[in-house]
């Protein structure tokens, strides 16, 4: 499995041991960000669209119970089995029991960060059910026994040479082959077999519509359609925040989603599911797993607006240079850094600090989540409620006291100033993290002293 780093700086350090990989990773994602810019600038009403989306989400989240129940009623009327799961364990148990009831041995799965969040695959494997991820990127990380490093581009951290090697080992492609078309064809052939053998298909959900009881799944590879239409059982798993009130709202979100994610006007497949075909079964599992708790936090409620486009990852200068695996949570990048502390404050305490608060994530977000403001707010909670970075806590307390006392502050500044004029060997010591790769400024006469001399 991919290495689990103890905190973000450790993961970032490891990723930066290979500067060429950092350059390549940064450029690959910046290319996507630029494609997104082009696509959004073709929509003059883009900002208005974002605002409408944010308002629909705000409305929906404040009436979540009503819309979820409406969805359940409509879906059941359509012949869909609806299940409710309060956490990951319940979700996994529900999925397993459906599969066991049908004696399922082979499952094809497509694009669901929720099942990653719930660690569904290992749970099913323990019960002798084989799960094949059918999204190309997800299949690559699955074969490599890793986790997705990005929610839209799961294998963005892998070079084509590494994919070639992996496919040579698992899919018998030619040794040394790196041609993307060749490799993709090999994967397609391999996956066709899996689709044909599958006894059940598990998919994610991008949007569930309360008024129709239907749901929409967006992909570029058509793997959702292949899986769900071939297998006798289709289980769709969704976080409860994926609900939208009306079909017409899809017109807002589908326009925002693909443009934000990849710079496409729309995903290649936006598949609408409403009812099972004759003789088949369709299930939907509505999962809470911490979402209602997040909903109860006024400062962080808006994080549930997320439509999982990944734009905040592509734009984040830290994500691009540290890679998705440097984050301690399933969902990496800025959005993951505001979702994860609510799940485990201690485990994910470094994530809200993995940011310069540059604000690019908030401006790129199609549903207007105030991501960088939430990062700031999580920082306050982490420093108050955990023992994260006690040295920083103490130094901030002392600095704060000094700054409240002008005389003391000026005196300490003078001492610091004198120290920085001292011998280089003392200044550039191992404790000076700044000075490992940077020079410190060289102090001269302070403005205070100059002003006193010239203006009083």
């Amino acid at each position, binding site marked *: 499995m991919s290495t689990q780093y103890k905190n973000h700086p450790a993961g970032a350090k490891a990723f930066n041991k290979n500067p060429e990989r950092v350059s390549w990773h940064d450029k690959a994602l910046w290319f996507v960000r630029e494609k997104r810019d082009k696509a959004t600038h073709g929509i003059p009403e883009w900002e208005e669209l974002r605002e409408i989306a944010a308002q629909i989400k705000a409305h929906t989240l404040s009436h979540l119970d009503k819309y979820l129940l409406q969805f359940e009623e409509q879906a059941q009327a359509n012949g869909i089995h609806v299940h409710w799961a309060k956490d990951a364990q319940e979700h996994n148990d529900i999925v397993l029991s459906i599969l066991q009831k049908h004696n399922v041995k082979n499952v094809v799965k497509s694009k669901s960060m929720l099942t990653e969040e719930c660690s569904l695959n290992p749970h099913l494997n323990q019960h002798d059910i084989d799960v094949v991820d059918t999204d190309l990127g997800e299949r690559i990380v699955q074969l490599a026994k890793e986790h997705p490093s990005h929610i839209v581009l799961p294998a963005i951290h892998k070079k084509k040479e590494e994919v070639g090697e992996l496919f040579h080992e698992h899919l018998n492609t030619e040794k040394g082959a790196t041609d993307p078309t060749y490799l993709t064809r090999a994967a397609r052939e391999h996956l066709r077999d899996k689709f044909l053998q599958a006894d059940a298909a598990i998919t994610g959900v991008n949007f569930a519509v309360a008024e129709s009881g239907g749901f929409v799944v967006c992909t570029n590879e058509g793997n959702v359609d292949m899986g769900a239409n071939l297998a006798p059982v289709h289980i769709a798993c969704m976080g409860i925040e994926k609900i939208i009130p009306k079909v017409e709202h899809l017109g807002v979100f589908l326009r925002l989603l693909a443009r934000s994610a990849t710079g496409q006007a729309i995903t290649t497949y936006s598949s609408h599911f409403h009812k099972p075909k004759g003789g088949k079964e369709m299930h939907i599992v509505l999962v809470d797993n911490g979402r209602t708790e997040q909903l109860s936090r006024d400062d962080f409620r808006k994080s549930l607006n997320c439509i999982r486009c990944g734009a905040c990852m592509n734009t984040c200068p830290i994500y691009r*240079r540290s890679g998705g695996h440097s984050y301690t949570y399933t969902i990496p990048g800025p959005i993951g850094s505001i979702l994860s502390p609510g799940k485990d404050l201690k485990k994910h305490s470094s994530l809200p600090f993995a*940011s310069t608060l540059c604000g690019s994530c908030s401006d790129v977000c199609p549903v207007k989540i105030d991501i960088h403001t939430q990062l700031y707010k999580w920082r306050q909670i982490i420093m108050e409620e955990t023992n994260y970075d006690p040295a920083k806590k103490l130094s901030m307390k002392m600095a704060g006291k000094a700054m409240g006392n002008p005389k003391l502050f000026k005196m300490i500044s003078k001492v610091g100033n004198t120290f920085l004029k001292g011998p280089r060997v003392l200044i550039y010591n191992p404790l000076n993290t700044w000075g490992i790769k940077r020079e410190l400024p060289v102090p001269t006469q302070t403005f205070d002293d100059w002003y006193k001399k010239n203006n009083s």
Partner: protein
Amino acid sequence: MEIGLFIPCYINQFYPEVAKATLKLLQKYGNVTYPLSQTCCGQPMANSGCEKDGVDALKVFYDNFKDFDYVVGPSASCVLHVREHGAHLYPTMAPMIDKVFDLTEFIYDVIKEKELQAEFPHKVAIHKSCHGLRGMRLGQCSERVTCDVSKQDVLVEQVTGVTLIQPKRADECCGFGGTFSVSEPDISVRMGTDRLKDYIESGAEYITSGDMSCLMHLDGIIQREKLPIKVIHLAEILASEINSTTTDKEKAYVNAV
């Protein structure tokens, strides 16, 4: 017009030339006072998750500046902190928040300067500091589909002799981020190095910015790696004298650091 000159603590300590240039610029527009007992805005504490430890700094800020018509400082970042967090951290200061301005914003929005008398015959790239750009909306940011005026560009364009250079990435963060620069040193330095490469490749002689903290970080890498580019605060360009020789300005810059 009574203007209180707010000089961020690290500018006072390390970049007196920036403070002098700010003072000189503001003196064109009003009576400027520099309260000597000012300390810091408290942003380092706040962004580190210890915002309450920064309340005393805000009290000192309030005591020093409450009576001025305007409070102006050469740092979008420090000013943004006061504006965004001042009122909730120290409610007494709420009424003065709207009087606190970043230097370029003050010259553009309050003074509405159209004819800056300045000369700086160099190729200059403006590093759009994130707090100025996205926090205070001083310009058009690349993420949004809006038509915001880039106020710093407009002001720099008034300076005789300046050639504005556009880097490939218009507004990517430099990687300073306050304590981020020391808690995530690998990423911070890498971000700075990437920005510098972009600015150097675009042909700029100088990188300028409304925030000296970004420039301090970038200059730390420039000095260590001996890179062929210099940093200079926007105040120094806007206050640069007509007809003064290049060497004078370069000397002033050297003195500043």
